[in-house]
């Protein structure tokens, strides 16, 4: 039976309506709002008070120390204690929308997320205040502990924690800061952390490379425990505390009163491997890689893995594939790369593509070499 004109018109209109593509929404905004709503629904026991009128001292004076790139502190005789904080806690807030609120986690930890930049977990029975979340996320820890995971970036000082008169500046890392009575404890799982006095210029910061553990006075001076004893000895600022109990200079020949570290400042090392004799004997080879050198190498690593991931991962216009993995690579004293590992492992095709290229990367030579651990987010 032949269709009537109305039926033909209806069919034609339906075809046109079918042709219309899915609406192009702001998916980041939708996702952000969705997860914020989900978190609110979890009924976390948190109290968000009005921001205090008291201004925190002189954050604007802090140096934009790109040098403090990676952080990495660990507790000595403990397994990697800094678990992914986001997964550990049960509720989260949008940190970029918090203003300068006072946050209090009561019986449960509280997650604060800054999408694409960092997430941090305020432990139960802890208090913190977000001081700023524009270019630099700045958090004041008032009581208790917080753990943070900061997305690696080349931008300096993406995340700063202030504890009493101590500042902990990070670039891309996983770390934990605890205010414990008259001391501040910093544990870093990945990267390098700079810990020092809040006031600029009073003392050089202590640079610590993961995995290690550091304890500091409320004024930001490191506290070193005696290797065998229980007594605590306060060391001059500018001395790093490794988890082996060694005291390592933060910069060759630098005094505690030196200017804040620059991106090229050497990092106090806790590298496990002993330096080869020939490297130690060469006076032209630096003791450790600088932050700038490590960052430059990491950028190449990230670019290489990303390119292989895009190349080897099937996808379509409407499908986004995201993979998370932690890369660990050893930089030899001669600058070569050894032992590239991904945890969890990436797809075989991505590994086949990226590993040979990573093993060909060259870092500057250094006496100690380096171990680099980074969390990667790969997107296709």
């Amino acid at each position, binding site marked *: 039976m032949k269709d*009537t*004109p*109305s*039926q033909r*018109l*209806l069919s*034609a*209109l*339906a*075809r*046109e*309506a*079918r*042709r*219309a*593509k*899915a*609406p*192009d*929404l*702001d*998916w980041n*905004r*939708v*996702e952000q*709002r*969705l*997860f914020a*709503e*989900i978190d609110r*629904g979890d009924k976390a026991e948190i109290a968000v008070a009005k921001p205090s009128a008291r201004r925190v001292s002189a954050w604007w004076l802090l140096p934009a120390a790109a040098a403090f790139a990676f952080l990495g502190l660990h507790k000595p005789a403990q397994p990697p204690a800094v678990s992914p904080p*986001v*997964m550990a806690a049960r509720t989260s807030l949008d940190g970029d929308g918090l203003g300068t609120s006072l946050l209090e986690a009561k019986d449960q930890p509280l997650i604060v997320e800054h999408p694409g930049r960092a997430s941090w977990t305020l432990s139960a029975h802890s208090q913190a205040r977000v001081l700023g979340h524009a270019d630099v996320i700045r958090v004041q820890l008032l009581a208790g502990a917080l753990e943070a995971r900061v997305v690696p970036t080349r931008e300096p000082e993406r995340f700063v924690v202030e504890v009493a008169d101590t500042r902990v500046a990070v670039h891309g890392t996983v770390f934990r800061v605890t205010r414990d009575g008259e001391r501040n404890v910093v544990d870093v799982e990945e990267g390098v952390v700079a810990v020092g006095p809040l006031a600029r210029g009073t003392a050089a910061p202590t640079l610590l490379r993961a995995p290690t553990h550091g304890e500091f006075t409320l004024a930001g001076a490191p506290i070193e425990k005696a290797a065998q004893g229980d007594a605590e000895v306060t060391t001059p600022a500018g001395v790093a505390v490794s988890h082996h109990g060694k005291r390592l200079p933060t910069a060759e020949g630098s005094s505690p009163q030196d200017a804040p570290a620059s991106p090229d400042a050497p990092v106090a090392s806790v590298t496990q491997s002993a330096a080869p004799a020939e490297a130690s004997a060469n006076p032209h080879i630096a003791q450790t890689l600088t932050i700038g050198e490590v960052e430059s190498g990491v950028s190449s690593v990230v670019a290489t893995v990303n390119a292989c991931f895009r190349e080897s991962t099937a996808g379509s216009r*409407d*499908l*986004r*594939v*995201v*993979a*998370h*993995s932690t890369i660990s690579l050893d930089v030899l004293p001669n600058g070569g790369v050894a032992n590239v590992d991904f945890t*969890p*492992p*990436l*797809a075989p095709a*991505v590994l086949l593509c990226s590993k040979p290229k990573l093993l060909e990367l060259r870092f500057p030579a250094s006496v100690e070499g380096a171990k680099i651990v980074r969390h990667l987010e790969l997107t296709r």
Partner: protein
Amino acid sequence: MAVDEPVAPEELVRRCQAGDRAAFGELFVRHRADVARLVQRLLGGQGDIEDVVQEVFLQVHRSLKDFRFGARFTTWLYRVSVNVVLMQRRSARSRPKLVETPEGLVPLEPGLSPEEHAARGRRVQAFYRVLDRLSEKKRVAYVLHELEGLSPSEIAETVSAPVLTVRTRLFYARRELAVLLREEPSLAGIARELDEIDLTEGQPHKEPA
């Protein structure tokens, strides 16, 4: 969550049910475009698509623990979407209507001139205006079948109704729409436009049975 290989849909749902936040994020990414398209078609240009899509996934998050794999996840997702849209439409009746824009219903496609895009927008706008005059049940059945390409049995599962009932709704929906089109004043001009356009090419969705 590491996603070396695409996670199977069932496994992804199980991870969500176990409270895996990253898995729910992945679920959202996989299905958001389909949900948005369905929401847009069911809303017919009324209401805020973003809000409704967000509400759909919020409901999914709340109810996913009750999903027992008795049906395909996508069918269950469609059911949630339909219910959320109907709730939204009912609550919106007491609120002032926003004037829908053709651009909202017909995203700009490459290759279409601005004039063609505007003309298509007007036609689709008129189509949804007519569609909006159907009863809820008929409109849902029509949209799921004619626009989303679901079979009557899939629709029956989605709306929890017998297949025969769905077929009946489809029959009456088409008949009523044909009548309503004649009563739509703007469609006289649209009919002339249609004569000038080849509408036989490009059908992104399967033809309904």
